[in-house]
């Protein structure tokens, strides 16, 4: 009985960030990288995976050390741990692809100040054992990546006529350039938020 309850709890931990508390569409957190780097599907995926890596690793380490860290220095400790994993991601991305590193630019280093990560550390990892903490962080990471991909793919299709670098409409396509410029980020994010709000409202009225 306890096993099955625990199973559900772990599953819920994972699903929370992917759907119910999706960082981009529900909590609208971490908007800076969300709007800035999602000009293509590839960039969005790279940023999402990098953020997810930092989320999972920092949540795991903070959860392991949670009983050891005095609360007076907890924020300083969390930031040191998060900054460490961001530095690691910085090196790893350079080793994997310099093109991706140049495309993401300063936004890799700025993962340090992404409020999703410190938010998860403070609100969840610091209070839970490693397994649920890591699962919750992993779910948030997936949710964030889905959010970035939703923006990145739409912007790349409309703004460049491509998806993951593959041309979709042939040479006659006239790219809708504003979509890969900063205003396009707001347009597409607004569109997605509208869609989610409409969907949530419809579900509510169906239940009522």
């Amino acid at each position, binding site marked *: 009985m306890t096993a099955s309850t625990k199973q559900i709890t772990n599953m819920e931990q994972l699903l929370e960030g992917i759907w119910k508390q999706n960082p981009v569409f529900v909590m609208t957190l971490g908007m800076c990288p969300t709007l800035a780097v999602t000009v293509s599907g590839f960039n969005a995926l790279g940023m999402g995976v990098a953020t997810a890596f930092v989320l999972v690793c920092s949540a795991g380490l903070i959860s392991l*050390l949670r009983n*050891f*860290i*005095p*609360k*007076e*220095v907890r924020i*300083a*400790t969390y930031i*040191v*741990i998060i*900054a*460490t994993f961001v*530095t*690691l991601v910085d*090196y*790893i991305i*350079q*080793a*994997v*692809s*310099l093109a991706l590193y*140049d495309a993401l*630019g300063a936004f890799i280093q700025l993962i340090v100040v992404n409020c999703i990560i410190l938010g998860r550390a403070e609100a969840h990892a610091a209070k839970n054992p490693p397994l649920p903490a890591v699962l919750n962080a992993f779910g948030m990471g997936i949710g964030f990546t889905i959010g970035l991909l939703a923006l990145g793919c739409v912007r790349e299709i409309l*703004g*460049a006529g491509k998806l993951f670098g593959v041309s979709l409409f042939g040479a006659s396509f006239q*790219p809708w*350039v504003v979509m*890969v*410029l900063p205003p396009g980020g707001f347009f597409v994010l607004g569109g997605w938020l509208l869609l989610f709000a409409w969907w949530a409202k419809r579900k509510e009225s169906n239940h009522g």
Partner: protein
Amino acid sequence: MSEHRTGIPPADITGSGRLVATLGLVTMICGALIVAVWQWTLPAIAANKKVVLERGVKALVPDAARIVEYDAAADGIRPAQGDPAAGAVRFYATYDGEGRLLAIAAEGAARGYADVVRVLYGYRPACECIFGIRVVQMKETPGIGDKIITDAAFVANFDGLDVSLAPDMKSLSNEVKTVKHGSKKFGWEIDAITGATITSKAVGRGINDSVQMLLPRLRPNLEELKREKGSGK
């Protein structure tokens, strides 16, 4: 501050020794992690940078059989080691299969509209001219600033761009300059792209700054470079 802060009873206050120890230990773990991953990724990063560089130089000088990196400092040129020292200009000498110097490639950078525009240019000592450029990095507006790559008329500016040195060998006889579209008169001028003037000017400025630094240091040592040294590498 209020005495009635909930959640932190006085007995719970941690001694400063413990705080320092916690931060010290955590930073030690983090430092070790960073050093380990840095050493682990270092060879891959260096290899990546080399591939990107060779691809760029080969695109400019397709016949290049070998590329040798040099640094041009104020007191002469020497083979490159690690990152270039402050004030030194990194350049790449390209050689054919028999070790004869084909051309020199170097990078120029200047601030464009969105961010720094970095271009690699090819210099041919025989004509004292630039014979081509390749954009290494830019974040200019798609459809406008990226015309510096796609606009054939603009690219043609760099086929035989005059960068000859003045008789005193200390600077160019004529500064490389980006001029308004349609008003190019001389071999050292670059015809800007209408609507992308800032980006066009950044390319011109980046090349001019780099050439003004590099060529006065390079010319006196050119004879040394004409044949590849120690063809083992």
